[in-house]
Structure formats: C-alpha cells, structure tokens
C-alpha cells in the first residue's frame, strides 16, 4: 500500500543547468521501495504546477546519516523547475512507492542481465544496480545520452556494477561510443552474449528499438515506462499505453515496469 507523507527536503545536488538530484527524507516510503517504483511529488501548494509529478525513486540512501530518497530530475517544464528550488527543510507531499517494480526476485548469483538507460532514464536503474550488485547478479549497463553532460551518476553505477561493466554512448562522442546506446547492446548480442533479462528506461524511440532487438534475440524485458500522470494510483486512467490485448493499460498501476511484449508498439 503506497503511503502519502510530507517529507522534508534534505538537499539538492545540481549537475548542470537542467539536471539535479533531489534528496528528501525516506519516511516510511524508503523501506517499502523496490527498484522501479516511483513516487508522485507535489511541487508547492500553488496552481502552477497543479498536479503532482511522477519520478522514479532513483535510490534509497542516506544524507548525513538521515535515511533519504533520491530523485534524479531533468528540468523540462514548470514542475521540474519548481522542485529544483525548494530550500532544505521544506516539506513536500510525496505519495509512494507506486506501481509495479522491476521483476528481480528470480535472479541470483549465476545470472547476467542488461540495463539500458537513455538520458534521464538512468533514474530507476540506480537502485536496481545497487540491489542487483548486493545480490551478486552480474549486471551490465548500457547508457546513452546526447553528450557527456547527459550521462549522470557514472560514479554510482561504476561503484555498484564495476567500471568494466558500464558502457556509454553519446550522440556527439563526448563520452564513450559516438552513436546510439542500442549499438552497444547489439554488439554484445552479436558477439553471442546472452542476458536473462533486459531492464530499460528511456524515451519512446529507445523502447521501440529495444523491443525490436528483444524480439529478434528472444530477450525477456522489463521496461520502466513514462507517461503523463494525473493521479499515479490507477484512478484517472490518464496514463495508459496501448496493450497487446487491445486494452489500454495504466502505466501507473499495471506498470510502470512492463515487459515489452505487453505493449502494442504499433499503436504507441
């Protein structure tokens, strides 16, 4: 059962003009959080933004000893801009953890999985990396962005997974391979590597490409989807994606983590 709590802002860590990490008290949400969960944050009590905004719980960690939730945020509009500016101590209404997390219970020491992030899609993969590493699962990260600045929290990923298991791709070649992140993955698959599951988060074109790759390679997947959300807990029916069975599935309740086979990509 998700909880609604007023959690105080602990700190904000700015990466560049449009990316930052927001740390808030973990409250009772922290202990309930599994990789892939998200939360709905109310950015101020004004009318702009009006609705809460959805963010992956990027990590459950501590800030100066205080249990904390970390959100990694990209500024794209009024809500993400407002959240960047709350002073330490400001109470933020947070509803979470929400949604269906990444399936990981079946993984053990002998398993290898792939994590693919596009841009801000890194967010849900941070906690996933931490948890998989703790379990001894071998996880390889393929992380793409427009340029080096777009690729966040490398130190964390490399600490959790080992630097040799982290591969990067950028549009301008400023970090890692110049090109698409899917090319990194494709290269491994072509070399005969297999993965028990592919976890991914990023923009729709990335998901589309990965779905194609997964179909060809017969890979099991779990995609952390995004969509515009009003409620985050399954009542507004605003956040849906077309499902293979003809229905529309709620991203907030049936997702956000769904196998690519659940989705009708022709209608996305």
């Amino acid at each position, binding site marked *: *059962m*998700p909880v*609604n709590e007023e959690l105080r802002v602990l700190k904000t860590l700015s990466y560049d003009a449009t990316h930052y990490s927001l740390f808030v008290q973990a409250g009772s949400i922290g202990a309930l959080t599994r990789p892939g969960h998200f939360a709905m944050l*109310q950015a101020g009590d004004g*009318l*702009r*933004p*009006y*609705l*809460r905004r959805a963010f992956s719980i990027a990590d459950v960690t501590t800030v100066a000893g205080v249990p904390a939730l970390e959100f990694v945020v990209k500024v794209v509009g009024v809500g993400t801009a407002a959240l960047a500016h709350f002073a330490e101590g400001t109470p933020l*209404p947070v*509803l979470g953890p929400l949604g269906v997390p990444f399936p990981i219970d079946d993984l053990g020491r002998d398993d290898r999985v792939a994590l693919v992030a596009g841009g801000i899609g890194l967010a849900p993969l941070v906690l996933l990396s931490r948890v998989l590493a703790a379990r001894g699962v071998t996880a390889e990260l393929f992380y793409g962005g427009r340029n080096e600045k777009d690729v966040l929290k490398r130190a964390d990923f490399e600490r959790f997974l080992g630097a040799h298991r982290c591969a990067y791709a950028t549009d301008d070649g400023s970090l890692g391979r110049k090109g698409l992140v899917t090319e990194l993955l494709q290269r491994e698959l072509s070399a005969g590597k297999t993965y028990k599951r592919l976890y991914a988060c990023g923009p729709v074109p990335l998901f589309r490409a990965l779905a194609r790759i997964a179909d060809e390679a017969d890979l099991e997947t779990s995609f952390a989807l995004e*969509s*515009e*959300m*009003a*409620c985050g*807990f*399954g*009542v*507004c*029916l*605003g*956040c*849906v*994606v*077309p499902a293979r069975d*003809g*229905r*529309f599935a709620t991203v907030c309740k049936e997702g956000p983590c769904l196998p690519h086979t659940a989705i009708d990509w022709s*209608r996305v």
Partner: protein
Amino acid sequence: MSVDLAVRLGPLALRNPIATASGTFGYGLEFEGYVDLGGLGAISVKGLSRRPCHGNPPPRICEVDAGMLNAIGLQNIGIDTFLGERLPLLHAKGATVIANIWGDTEDEYVEVLERIGDDARVAAIELNVSCPNVVKGGMVFGNDPVALAALVKRCRVATKLPLVVKLSPNSGDIVAAARAAVDSGADILSLINTLVGLAIDLERREPKIGFTTGGLSGPAIRPIALRMVWEVRRALPNVPLFGMGGIETVENVLEFLVAGATAVQVGTANFRDPFVSGRLVKELAAWCDRHGVDRVADLVGTLKTRPRPEHTFAKA
C-alpha cells in the same frame, strides 16, 4: 456542539454532503487507506457502460493553468464486472454508491439500468449525458434538451432508484437542460461536467490530447460551476442539486452549498490529494461548529443577492 451533516436530495439521503465525482475516484476501492469510504456522503463511480470500454488512445490528459484537460473516453470495466466484483466490496465498506452510467444510444442506457435492476446496494443512478470526450457517448443528449428529455423519460421508466442527471456546461442554456431533465423524471441534478477545452503542443503543432479537445476540470472552472448551480437553483428552487467543479477546500464546499447545491462532488482534487474528500468531511463539521451552524442543510441556497442595477448614463 455536534453538527448535523446529513442532507437529503429528494429520495436520496446522505450522511453528509461530501461525495466524490465520477471518473476521479475510480471504483472507490482504490482510495482505501486514504479515505474512509463509509464516511463519505457518497461515491459516484467511474462511468459504466453495458460492456467494458477501452476508452481513447493516449495522450489522454494534460495539465493546464489551474486544472487539467482529459479525454479518457469513458474507459471502464463494464456494468457486469462492477456489479459482480466491485459493488459487493464497496457495500461491505458501508459506502453509499452512485452508479454513474452512460451509453451511445438510449437503448444502451436502458440496458445498463436493467442490469442494475433495483439492487439496493446502489443508492442512486447518475446519468452522464455530458461527456465531451467521446464521438458518441451521451454528449448529444447533454447538448439538446429534446434528446435529453426523451432519454431521461426512458431511464425513468427503467429504474426505480433515485435518478440523478448530470448536466453539461457546454450547452449554453443550463436552465433549459435542467428543466428538460426534471420534467422528464430526474430526481436530482448534478452540475457541472467538464467544459470543452484545447491545449496545444507548440513544437509539434498538435493538440496535447489525442482526441484533440478534452474536458476542462479543476479550480479554473469553479466560478462557472458556481454560477450554473446558482442559476439552476434560482430557476428550480425545489430540485436538489449536486454541485461540482474545482472544489478543493472546505470554503469551496460551502460556496457551492450557499449557491444552492444540497451536496457536492469532489473531482480533480482527488488526484492532487487522495485524502481530500475524507478531510473535507471533518473540516465541514469543524467549520459549522466554529460558525454556530447546527445543521449543514440550513446553509443550502442561502446566497443573498441584490436586484441587478441597470447601468446609468451621464445626462446629455
């Protein structure tokens, strides 16, 4: 002092005037843990049709200033699943359930009513004749008093349950629609549904909503909703009304009561704050207590208005 929060809307008695609005409260059960379902005045569930409906392709919602647009397209689990799986649970929680229903044709409305029959676990029927977000789906009834009258007459015959008709604010003359519904057998009116709006994604030069337009809800529409409640109350003082549109605070609830609504429905605010409806019940009691109001029903329609002045001109 103990405040009497009970209100009566014709045949429908509610323990308090705070209900939740269709489409913004799911089938109620989603709010367990946030709200005491049995403590609300009523719960109007997501609009039900005779068969499960898939609704519109996304994007279905977007935020606008002081509100949102939606074009869900009436996605719902269908009347049978509702009656079989959800209603028993809602009933067990002590919830007062309003079945909000819709159809593409008169026959479809009647079919839903027949499936409900006189199930006593349903406290009232609410006919949605005003959803702007489907190509068919009731909007035609909402915008044409003649079609509306015909539909309400058939529904009136098809059910003995208290009959609520939910009106569209898009039709220009809300009083005409109200009269048509009441003359055809409606016990109660709900107003207002959403106003048709458009928001544009400038970079793509496309509507933000896949259906092009969407229904505007939230604080932005509150002054319009209040005006319509007041207008209908003035024209039809004996018809009980559910008022809704942008209600967020206990002051908003009271404004609607004072304007002439016997009860209210809380809509979009449930998304922003899932606890709001339950909290409003408590805050309403506290407000009445503070203001020396014994019975909340005494507040209904107490707006004092003055005759409207004609403008005067300077002497020539």
